C-alpha cells in the first residue's frame, strides 16, 4: 500500500542517502568484525588487523553445533519465544486499550506501570522464582516464558497506537453496534499493525536472548534454551577467536529473521485518509 510521492529535488535526496550510508557504515563495522572472526581462526588482537578474512571457513559453526544438544535447545528456545510473543501481543493490546479508556484509578494504574519499568529484573528474581515455583511452573515451557508474557514498554506502544486511531472511527464502530472485543479486534488492531510488529520483534528478541531467567528455573539440562546452553561453555573457549563469535552470530540470526518478516508492517499511512475535514 505504498503511496507514490513527489520526488524531492535530487541534491536533498542524495544528502539523505549520504547520511544513511554514513550511519550504516558506522553500524556495520563492528558487526563485520564479529562476522569475520566467526568465519576464521584468527585472533582479533592480531596486529596488523587484517581487513579481509584469510582462509574463511564455516567450521566454527559446526563446532558450536556439536558442543551441546543443539536441536533440542533450539526447539526449546523457539517454543518459549513463541509463547512469549503470543502472550505479549494479546496481553499488551488488552492492557494498552484499557489505558486509553477512562476508569476510576486510571492514573494510579498508569503510575504503577511506569514504576514497574523502574525495577530491573535482577532485583525481582527471588519473588519471581517463588511465584513460579508455587504455581508449579518450574522447568516448564510456560514457566520459562512467564516473566516475559507482558512488558510495560510494549503496553505503552500499544496505548500510543490505539490513541492515534481517530476517535470518530471508534464512535462509528460503537454506532454500528460492535462490542468492545470486536472494536479491539476488528478496528483497532488492524490499524495498529506497526505496533504489533514492534511488539513481536521486541518480545521475541527479549525472550530469545534471555539468559538469567532460564538459568534460574531450569532443573533439567535438556530444558535449557539455546543462548543459555551455549553460554555455559563460554568460559572454556577463548573469547578472542572464532567459537564465541560463531555462537553470537547463531543466536543473532533468528532475531534478524523475525525482524525482517515483521518490519514489512512499517508502511506508512494506514490511518491517514480515514477521516477528512
Amino acid at each position: 500500500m505504498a503511496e507514490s510521492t513527489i520526488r524531492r529535488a535530487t541534491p536533498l535526496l542524495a544528502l539523505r542517502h549520504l547520511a544513511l550510508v554514513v550511519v550504516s557504515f558506522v553500524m556495520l563495522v563492528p558487526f563485520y568484525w564479529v562476522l569475520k572472526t566467526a568465519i576464521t581462526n584468527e585472533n582479533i588482537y592480531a596486529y596488523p588487523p587484517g581487513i579481509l578474512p584469510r582462509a574463511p571457513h564455516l567450521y566454527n559453526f559446526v563446532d558450536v553445533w556439536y558442543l551441546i544438544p543443539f536441536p533440542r535447545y533450539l526447539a526449546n528456545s523457539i517454543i518459549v519465544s513463541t509463547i512469549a510473543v503470543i502472550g505479549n501481543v494479546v496481553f499488551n493490546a488488552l492492557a494498552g486499550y484499557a489505558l486509553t479508556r477512562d476508569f476510576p484509578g486510571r492514573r494510579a494504574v498508569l503510575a504503577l506501570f511506569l514504576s514497574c519499568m523502574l525495577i530491573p529484573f535482577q532485583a525481582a528474581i527471588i519473588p519471581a522464582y517463588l511465584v513460579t515455583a508455587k504455581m508449579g511452573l518450574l522447568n516448564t515451557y510456560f514457566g520459562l516464558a512467564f516473566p516475559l508474557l507482558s512488558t510495560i514498554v510494549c503496553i505503552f506502544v500499544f496505548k500510543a497506537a490505539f490513541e492515534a486511531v481517530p476517535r470518530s472511527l471508534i464512535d462509528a464502530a460503537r454506532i454500528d453496534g460492535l462490542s468492545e472485543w470486536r472494536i479491539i479486534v476488528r478496528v483497532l488492531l488492524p490499524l495498529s499493525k506497526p505496533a504489533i510488529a514492534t511488539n513481536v520483534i521486541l518480545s521475541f528478541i527479549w525472550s530469545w536472548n534471555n539468559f538469567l531467567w532460564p538459568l534460574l528455573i531450569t532443573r533439567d539440562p535438556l530444558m535449557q534454551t539455546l543462548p543459555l546452553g551455549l553460554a555455559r561453555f563460554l568460559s572454556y573457549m577463548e573469547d578472542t577467536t572464532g567459537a564465541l563469535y560463531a555462537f553470537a552470530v547463531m543466536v543473532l540470526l533468528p532475531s534478524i529473521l523475525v525482524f525482517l518478516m515483521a518490519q514489512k508492517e512499517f508502511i506508512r499511512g494506514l490511518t491517514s485518509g480515514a477521516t477528512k475535514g
Partner: protein
Amino acid sequence: MLVGPSGCGKTTTLRIVAGLEEPSDGEVWIGGRRVDGVSPRDRDVAVVFQNYALYPHMSVFDNMAYGLRIRGFARKDIAAVKVAMPKVLHDVCYRAMHLHGALGVSNELPLAGMWMSAAALGIALLVNSDLKGATVYRTIVFLSYPLMAVAVGIIWRWMYDERGGIINYALRASGLVDRPIGFLQDFDWALPSVIFAEIWQVLGFYMIILLTGLQSIPQNLYEAARIDGAPAWARFFRITVPMLRPSLFLCIVVGILNSFSSFDLVYIMTNGGPGHATELLITHIYKSAFVETKFDYAAALTVVQFSLLVVLTIAANRAAGGNAGAVERD
C-alpha cells in the same frame, strides 16, 4: 435540524441522541421509546460523521456492509446493496479515500541530534520515507540490537584498543593522529567511548519505537501545512514532534531507565574505567555489594537510585503532558 453558533452544543446534543454521551440531567426519547441509558447499538440510529469515519482497512463494500452484517442481515440482502450501488458513487468514494495518496508527502529530514533519542528519531524519519532501500537501511541499523551484550562489549573493547584496535589503526594509517588514542584508558575519552558503544547497540530499539509512532501521524496534516506554506523545519517542529509525543516520551523515559541499569557493557569494557571515569551508579552498587561486601551501603544506594528514577519519570510524564504523553485526536 439544529442551528446555532459554534460552541452552543449542536454536536453534543446529537451525540447524546446517538448514545455516544450520556446527559447529566433529563431524558432522551426516540420514537416514543425512552433510550437514555441504552447503548447506541440498541437505539437503532445511524450516524453520518462530519469526517466520514471510514474503516480504511476494509473495502468500500465492507464499510457499508459491516454495520448491516452486525445487525444480522442475510448475506444475499447485503449483496443486493452492493448491486444497487451506482458505480459512480462507488468510484467517488474510493477515489476520495486515496486522494491523499496522489498528493503524497514524505516525512521531513531532521537534524540528527546529539543524543540517542534524537539520533534514533533522525534515522527513523529517514527510513520512514519511500526512500529506495529504506528496508536495507532499517535492517542495518537494527542488526546490532539483538546481538549479545558480551559479544558487543568484547568487540568494542577490541576496536578501541590502542595497539590492535581497528579505530586507532585506521586513524594512524590515514595520518590523522601520530600517537594512538587510549579510548578506554584516557580519563577524558573513556566515558564518551563507552557511551558511543552503548548507543551503537541500542539505536535499533529506539528507531523502531519511533518508526511506530511516525506511522500514525496522518498525512493530511502535512498536506495542510504544505498548502499553508510552512517550511520543512516548521513542519517538523509543529507537526512531527508534537504528534510523536507518546513515542518520544517512551523513548526518553526508557532511555533514562536503561542507561541507569546498563551494566553489562561497562563491566566488560572498562569495569569502572581508568580510576572511576566510567563508574556508573549501578557498577558502584555492584562493587560495593559483591566485591567490598558492603551490602547495607549498596542497598541504600539502590534505594537512592530508585527514588531518583521515580522523580525523573514523574517529571518526564508531567513534561509530556500527563497520560504518558497521549495526544488528543479528533
